[in-house]
């Protein structure tokens, strides 16, 4: 299927561009889904942490339902992410991936009643802007040859 699309794309530049755009949109949605799954995994990890206490035994950890569920979400999110990154540069997805910080912050406040304050919001905003700068398209660097 991919090869067929590639063939058509090579013959008609316009179609190649359309194809790339739809592929890109699909990847963006996939990465967005990954951030939600990833944030969900963090909440489950924290739930596990609360249930297990500071120094759990390995057996306790293996048998802890929220930890297992967290790993399942984390695993699904990681596999999906690796599929999305197959076609796209990781750095171009950075701004979307950093949305995970926002979801986790909201979930921490909502679910674990952690305080939301100016420094936390500013800290996350500054981190996200840094991540976005990292992912900026070839501003100060030379573009790579080829696709």
């Amino acid at each position, binding site marked *: 299927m991919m090869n067929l699309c590639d063939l058509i794309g090579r013959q008609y530049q316009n179609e190649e561009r359309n194809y790339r755009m739809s592929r890109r949109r699909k990847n963006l949605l996939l990465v967005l889904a990954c951030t939600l799954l990833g944030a969900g995994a963090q909440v489950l990890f924290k739930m596990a942490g609360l249930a297990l206490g500071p120094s759990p035994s390995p057996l306790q950890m293996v048998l802890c339902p929220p930890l297992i569920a967290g790993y399942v979400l984390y695993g699904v999110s990681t596999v999906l992410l690796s599929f999305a*990154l197959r076609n796209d540069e990781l750095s171009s997805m950075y701004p979307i991936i950093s949305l995970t910080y926002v979801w986790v*912050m909201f979930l921490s406040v909502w679910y*674990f009643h952690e305080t939301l304050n100016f420094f*936390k919001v500013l800290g996350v905003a*500054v981190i996200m802007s*840094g991540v976005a700068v990292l992912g900026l398209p070839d501003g100060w660097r030379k573009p790579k040859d080829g696709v």
Partner: protein
Amino acid sequence: MQTPLLSFLLVVVASFIGSFGAVFLKAGSKNLKSNLRSLLTNYKLAIGGILFVVSSLFFVKAISQPGAELSVLYPMVSMSYLWAMIWSRLFFQEPFTRQKFAGLGLIILGIAILQFGKQA
């Protein structure tokens, strides 16, 4: 209760290990196809996965400490960008650029700001 220092150290270790997971994931995603067999026989992907699991064990340990705040500790995972930049240069010959230094500077600043936000 305040997020303890041990939690911060554990997150640093977790991000360090996790950044190697990303290196293997990147290396493994190069020859990934949409079938189960190529997914299961991709040992680089498997190593990446294992490193992510090990990394997350340190993270779970970090947020399991009494008083540990998820909203402070999770954004600190962004420290893995620092490691990633170093490994990308070493293993994938991706150059250091002013842009990367600027982005990384902001990330480190953000992590520093977060420290003021933790519960007293």
